[in-house]
C-alpha cells in the first residue's frame, strides 16, 4: 500500500503541475466571467436603429398620446393615408401605422396596418402591440362603462404554498414555501451536471493516460515493481484528486471572479433577469425583494448536512465506477483513438442516458422512473444527487448508496482483471467479446 501512495502522488503531481492543467483551471473561471459580462452586455443592448412612425388614428383610440420608446418615435398626423404615402421619406418618417375604425366594440380582434419599405422588426412590433393593447383596454373600459375596480379584481395571481400534513407541538415541522421545488430543481440540476462533467472529463483523462502508458511501454517497466491493480487504482485515485482540486478551485474562483467582473463592468443583474423572465416585469420591485429573500431562506433551509455528504458519496462512487471502466477500455486500446470508439460507446451511453433521465427527474422527482433510475447503480450517481433536494425516502437513498458502492467495488475488480491483460497485449484489434474473455484469464 506504500507503493500505491507513491503512484497516487506521482499521478497527482505530474498533472497538477502541468501547464495545461493550470491554464484550464484558472482560465475557465475567467471564461465564465467573460461570458457573464458578454451576456449582460448583450441583454442590455437595445436596437440602435432609430425609427420614426407616423400614426393615423381614425377613432382617437390613443386619444392623441403614446409613449415613445428609445429609438422609436411616434407622431400623430391628420392627413389621409394616400397623402402620407407620398413623400414619406422626405417628411422624415420610416413607416405609417394606421389604426382603422372600430366596427364592433366587443370584437376580440383588432387589426392595425403598418406601411413601410420593410416589415417591422420584432422589437418595434412588440412595442406597438404592447402600447395598443393597453390603450385598447382603456378605450373599451370607457366605451363599455365598466367599473375599473371590479375589473382589476378579476386578475388574480395564484400561489401554491405546500404545507406539511402533520402538525406536532414542540416539534418543528419543516414548512415548505412557494419556492421549494424551484430551488430544489436548481440544486438538483447543478449536482447532476457536475457529476456528468466529472465522469466524462476525468474518465477520458484516465483512459488516455492508460493508453499512453501502454503505447510508450512504460507499463512493462512498472509491472515488474508493482501490481497492475495498484497501477490502475493509483491512477484512478490520483486523477480523482486532481478533479477534486480543480472543482475546489472553480467553486471558489467562479463566483468570485464573476461577481468581481459584474461589479467591474457594471452589468445590472436585474436587467438580465427581467429580460429573460417576462413575468418579472409585471411584478413590482418589492415583490422581487421578497422573492429573493424567500429564495435565500429556502436555500438555507436545505438540509445541507445530509445533502453534501451524500453528494460526496455519489461523486466518489460514480467516479470510481466509471473511471475504472474507462481504465479498462484504455488498457485494451492501441495507439489509434478512433478504433476505441466501439469500446467507449458502452460506457458513454449509460452516462448520457443518466443525464437525460436526470433532466426528466427534476420535473417529476417522485415518479417511478426517478425512483428506479436513482437506485440503478449505473444511473444513480447522476440521478440521485438531482433528487436529493426533493427529500426522497431515506430507504431509497440508503439502498441506492449501498448498491452503488457494491457495484463500484465490483467494477474496479472487474476492470482490474481486464486491465492486467490489456496493458500487455499489443497489435491486436480488441473486440468487446475479447474483453469479456480477459476477465476469466488466470494470472
Amino acid at each position, binding site marked *: 500500500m506504500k507503493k500505491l501512495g507513491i503512484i497516487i502522488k506521482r499521478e497527482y503531481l505530474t498533472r497538477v503541475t502541468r501547464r495545461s492543467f493550470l491554464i484550464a483551471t484558472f482560465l475557465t473561471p475567467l471564461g465564465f466571467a467573460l461570458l457573464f459580462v458578454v451576456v449582460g452586455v448583450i441583454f442590455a443592448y437595445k436596437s440602435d436603429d432609430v425609427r420614426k412612425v407616423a400614426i393615423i388614428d381614425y377613432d382617437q383610440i390613443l386619444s392623441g398620446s403614446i409613449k415613445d420608446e428609445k429609438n422609436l418615435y411616434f407622431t400623430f398626423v391628420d392627413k389621409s393615408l394616400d397623402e402620407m404615402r407620398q413623400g414619406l421619406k422626405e417628411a422624415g418618417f420610416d413607416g405609417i401605422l394606421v389604426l382603422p375604425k372600430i366596427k364592433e366594440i366587443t370584437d376580440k380582434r383588432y387589426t392595425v396596418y403598418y406601411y413601410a419599405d420593410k416589415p417591422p422588426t420584432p422589437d418595434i412590433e412588440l412595442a406597438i402591440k404592447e402600447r395598443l393593447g393597453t390603450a385598447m383596454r382603456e378605450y373599451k373600459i370607457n366605451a363599455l362603462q365598466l367599473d375599473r375596480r371590479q375589473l382589476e379584481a378579476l386578475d388574480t395571481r395564484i400561489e401554491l404554498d405546500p404545507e406539511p400534513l402533520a402538525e406536532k407541538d414542540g416539534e418543528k415541522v419543516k414548512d415548505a414555501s412557494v419556492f421549494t421545488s424551484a430551488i430544489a430543481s436548481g440544486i438538483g440540476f447543478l449536482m447532476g451536471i457536475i457529476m456528468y462533467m466529472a465522469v466524462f472529463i476525468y474518465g477520458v483523462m484516465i483512459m488516455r493516460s492508460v493508453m499512453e502508458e501502454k503505447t*510508450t511501454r512504460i507499463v512493462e*517497466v512498472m509491472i515488474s515493481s*508493482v501490481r497492475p491493480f495498484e497501477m490502475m487504482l493509483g491512477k484512478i485515485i490520483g486523477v480523482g484528486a486532481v478533479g477534486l482540486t480543480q472543482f475546489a478551485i472553480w467553486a471558489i474562483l467562479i463566483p468570485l471572479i464573476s461577481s468581481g467582473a459584474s461589479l467591474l463592468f457594471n452589468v445590472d443583474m436585474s436587467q438580465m433577469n427581467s429580460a429573460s423572465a417576462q413575468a418579472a416585469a409585471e411584478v413590482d420591485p418589492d415583490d422581487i425583494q421578497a422573492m429573493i429573500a424567500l429564495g435565500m431562506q429556502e436555500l438555507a433551509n436545505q438540509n445541507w448536512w445530509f445533502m453534501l455528504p451524500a453528494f460526496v458519496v455519489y461523486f466518489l462512487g460514480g467516479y470510481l465506477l466509471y473511471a475504472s471502466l474507462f481504465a479498462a477500455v484504455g488498457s485494451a486500446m492501441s495507439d489509434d483513438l478512433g478504433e476505441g470508439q466501439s469500446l467507449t460507446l458502452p460506457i458513454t451511453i449509460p452516462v448520457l442516458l443518466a443525464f437525460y433521465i436526470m433532466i426528466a427527474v427534476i420535473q417529476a422527482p417522485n415518479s417511478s422512473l426517478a425512483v428506479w433510475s436513482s437506485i440503478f447503480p449505473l444511473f444513480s450517481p447522476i440521478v440521485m444527487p438531482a433528487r436529493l433536494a426533493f427529500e426522497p425516502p431515506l430507504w431509497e437513498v440508503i439502498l441506492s448508496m449501498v448498491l452503488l458502492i457494491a457495484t463500484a467495488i465490483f467494477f474496479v475488480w472487474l476492470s482490474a482483471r481486464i486491465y492486467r491483460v490489456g496493458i500487455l497485449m*499489443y497489435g491486436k484489434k480488441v473486440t468487446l467479446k475479447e474483453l469479456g474473455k480477459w476477465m476469466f484469464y*488466470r494470472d
Partner: protein
Amino acid sequence: MSDQILQLDKVLKTYGNYAAVNHVSFDVPKGSIFGLLGPNGAGKTSLIRIITTITRADSGSVLLDGEPLNSRHPEVIGYMPEERGLYKKMKVGEHLLYLAQLKGLSKQQAQQALNFWMERFDIRDWWNKKVEELSKGMQQKIQFIATVLHKPKLLILDEPFSGLDPINTNLIKDEIYQLQKQGVSILFSTHRMEQVEEICERIVLINKGSVILEGNVQQIKNRFKEHRFQIDYEGELPADFEAQMAVVSHKPGSVMVQVAEGSRPNDLLQYFIQRGLQVRAFQELLPSLNEIFIRQVGISNEAAK
C-alpha cells in the same frame, strides 16, 4: 541458502490451448551470467514474466534464492524488458527516484544510489532534463540505471544492447561484469549469439515453450563439435592428401579437415610435420553457438511436425 539463485521445476503456463511455457526446468547458479536463448515467440518473455512475478505459472515451482516466489521478490529483482519505455514528460531525476521508490527504496536511499550511478555514467547534468529530450541511447542508459538502482540480487536483461552504439554497448557490458563481481546473478536474454558466447557461462535454449538445450557454453560447444581442425601451413600438400583426409575446405595455405571421432589432434599434427610442412597455425574448430542454435531449433521444429 542455496547455491542457485533461481531454480525452475516443470514450470507450465498455458494461454488457451497453447503452452507458452511447457514444463521448463533449469537452474541458474548464483553469481553467474546465464543466457536465456530462443527464437522469437519461444516463450522467453512468458517465462521471464513468471520469474518477475508479473504472471503466475499454472503449475511447477520457481524458487528464488531457495524461496518460492512471493510478493517481496520484485524488490530483489531488476528487470529490463525488451519493450521498454519511460514517462516522456518526466524529468530524468524524478523519474529514476520514482522507479526506485517503487522498488521499495526510501527517498534518501534512492537519492544516494542515484547520485552514485549518475556520477558513474557522468550524466549529472541530465537530472532536470525531460526524458523526451534524450536520444534513444541515452534513454537506454537511464533504463539500465533504473534496473540496478535498488541493488537487485537477480538482474534480468532482455536484449539490453539493442539500439546502443558500440561505445555504449561496451560501457553497459562493463557494468554488467562489475555487478557480477559484486555477486549479482544475471539472466541475459537475447538472440545475438556472439554476445552470448562472449558474456554467458551457461545457457538454456528454449523453443516453443520447451527446453531443448541446457548447460555450460564450452561444454555445449564441445558436445556439438564435429572434430574439425584448421591448419595453416607453408609448402605443398602431398598429392594423396585429399584421399587420406576428409577435407572440408581448402584454400592456398590453409585447409580444414574432419577427423574420425576418437582420433587425437596430435596425430594430425604429426602428419604435417612428418611431411616437412611448416605449420603456422593449428586449431580445433568448435561450432559457434549460432550454428548450434539454428540447427537445434530446426531439429526441434522438425520433431514437432
